[in-house]
């Protein structure tokens, strides 16, 4: 039976005026505390505001990223949502079942077998024994642990350890999944499996709250983002805009709170979209060596521009640039006049020779003087299939020549 969707999507998490103050103590032993007892003790206590009046709600089925520099309070906020830390002021309300992927495998006991640990960890995440038994085979299959399930966990490789922990967490049927930068686990094949599972979760209407530093991961998973700065909400909006604000804060450019409208209206020119196309203009995910591809940049002009430029670059996941070019480099000139509205620029790359792996595309729009106006980091990505015959980021045909005695 197909149910009708609810008229409006319910909120699963409502964060209302949440503040959190920590007291940092510098004296940690009984002796020090006795010595500094009473009034003198005050000076050994330092107040630290980790969260300041944070208010927002998360609707069901959305995937939201919490971003911000180190110490901005994003992990604290995640823990407040998870009920692990009590807020000093305000309240978090929640509905539905919650599972946390915080510090994977924290609940594992090294001396117990994988099987015992699965039951224990599942119970910690709120499954009953019967539910765990029902899902046990599926958990083992997902983790790819196989016969090692009855081996003590201390003999596991670190990859096996996190795989098992991840498998348990995703089998708890949560309505809300809290993720703290732990998605990059295991080998590449398993990472793909994790991502597939996350996408399946999204299709099933589960809510994902992700804490991450990685713009690529946020763009990949989330549809919206919250940027925190010194415990305050600096920005709430779409994931693409949030990553932009996050980067600006990281680079020290942005010191005040910004609104979503402001970000959109700020510049006279902005990059709307970035796509990787094949030679006939269809969007592609996989690129093979020898293919001809096109990079398509959509630029939105708020005012007409007589001269303007674009550049783009291609990076590996670790941020190593492998290719970059732009209109000025290629032609010595800029793009021609553009009116208000969207203009599409395509660059063709012939006979590409990227080595196997994942690549991200960044684009930049500049005004007539070459001053950068807008940057879209990791706006598109593509994958080059791995080859057993070679490694690295450059593809070139190679062969062994017969040994010749000298």
């Amino acid at each position, binding site marked *: 039976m197909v149910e009708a969707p609810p008229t409006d999507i319910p909120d699963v998490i409502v964060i209302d005026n949440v503040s959190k103050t920590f007291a940092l103590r510098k004296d940690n032993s009984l002796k020090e505390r006795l010595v500094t007892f009473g009034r003198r003790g005050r000076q050994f206590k330092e107040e630290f505001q980790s969260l300041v009046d944070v208010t927002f709600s998360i609707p069901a089925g959305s995937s939201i990223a919490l971003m911000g520099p180190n110490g901005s309070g994003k992990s604290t906020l995640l823990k407040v949502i998870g009920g692990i830390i009590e807020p000093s002021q305000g309240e978090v309300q*929640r*509905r539905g079942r919650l599972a946390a992927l915080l510090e994977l495998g924290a609940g594992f006991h090294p001396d117990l077998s994988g099987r015992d640990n699965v039951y224990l960890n599942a119970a910690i995440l709120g499954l009953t024994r019967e539910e765990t038994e029902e899902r046990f085979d599926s958990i083992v299959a997902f983790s790819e642990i196989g016969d090692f399930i009855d081996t003590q966990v201390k003999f596991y490789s670190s990859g096996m350890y996190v795989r098992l922990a991840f498998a348990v967490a995703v089998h708890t049927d949560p309505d809300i999944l809290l993720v703290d930068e732990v998605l990059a686990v295991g080998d590449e094949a398993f990472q793909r499996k994790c991502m597939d599972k996350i996408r399946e979760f999204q299709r099933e209407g589960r809510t994902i709250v992700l804490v991450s530093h990685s713009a690529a991961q946020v763009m990949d998973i989330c549809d919206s983002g919250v940027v925190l700065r010194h415990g305050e909400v600096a920005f709430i909006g779409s994931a693409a805009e949030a990553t932009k604000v996050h980067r600006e804060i990281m680079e020290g450019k942005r010191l005040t709170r910004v609104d979503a409208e402001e970000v959109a209206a700020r510049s006279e020119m902005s990059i709307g979209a970035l796509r990787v196309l094949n030679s006939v203009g269809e969007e592609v995910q996989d690129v093979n060596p020898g293919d001809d591809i096109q990079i398509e940049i959509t630029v939105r002009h708020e005012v007409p521009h007589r001269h303007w430029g674009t550049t783009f670059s291609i990076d590996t996941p670790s941020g190593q640039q492998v290719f970059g070019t732009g209109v000025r480099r290629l032609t010595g000139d800029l793009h021609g006049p553009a009116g208000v509205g969207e203009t599409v620029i395509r660059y063709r790359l012939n006979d590409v020779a990227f080595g196997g792996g994942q690549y991200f595309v960044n684009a930049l729009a500049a005004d007539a003087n070459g001053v950068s106006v807008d940057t879209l980091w990791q706006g598109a990505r593509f994958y080059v299939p791995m080859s057993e015959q070679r490694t690295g980021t450059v593809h070139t045909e190679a062969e062994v020549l017969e040994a010749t005695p000298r």
Partner: protein
Amino acid sequence: MNESAVVRFNRLAEQPLGSVTPTRAGFRGFVRTAQDIWRHRQLLGLLVRRDVKARYKDSVLGMLWTLINPLVQLGVYYLVMGQILGAARGITDFAVYIFAGLTIYGLFAETLSGATGSIVANAGLVKKVYVPREIFPLAAAGSAVFTFGVQLLVLLVASFTLGKPPLSVEILYFFPSVALIAVYGLAFGILLSAMNVYLRDVQYLTQVLLMLAMWASPIVYAWTMVGDVVNRFHLPTWLLEVYTASPLTLAVLGFHRAFWGAGQPADFPPDLLMRMGVAILIGFVLLYVCQRAFARLQGNFAQEL
């Protein structure tokens, strides 16, 4: 939006929003916590099993170690205290007497020292997900009960073979004794586990206090000897009353009554059962107070660990 998403949204829309950290103030908070722990009883069981299973993993003698320690203690006290120092002269079936006391004291000591370190030892879990944190000291108590069970078997065997078999209604003193230790062990255990998060000195202090507690209860000497000392030095008699009112003393006396068949009515204080009952009631009040203190302290566990 696919179908399972729609079903999920409709289900969620019907659920009320609930506070992530509901207030746990006052008596309602105590009841709420108790209900919360009851809901997590399967987890509690698994945690106890984990502790027991992991403790003697990879040791050749395994479970036997739960016996070796008290048996050696028994041997030493029997020989040194009983025979060399002469405490045994006033106490018939001295071996059973000592082992009865050591068994119930062992339950208290293991509960308290296990519980005190429990939150710190489970830091990974405390920081990972929300479960009622009282569950960790409770699990420590659970694994202490397991050790206690094994020692109890030995005590039964010993009392049947070495002394006068404890085959009278007196054996029912077992229950108030264990209840006393359970209530006081949990009350102090919960409080100390929370304090230990903020001040790690607590776990060492607990060891010292446990040692004092052992010598302050009639385990290797008789309760009557304390009375003799009070008389001999013309000390005020309320000292004996204070000594007797200690819950550990009462529990040990109750255990002697239950398992030490050679005991005579004169070996025990009058109205032992009533004294135990009063102590248990006070213990419940203490448990409530300690849990309240725990509830206040637990808010910042995740940062302090």
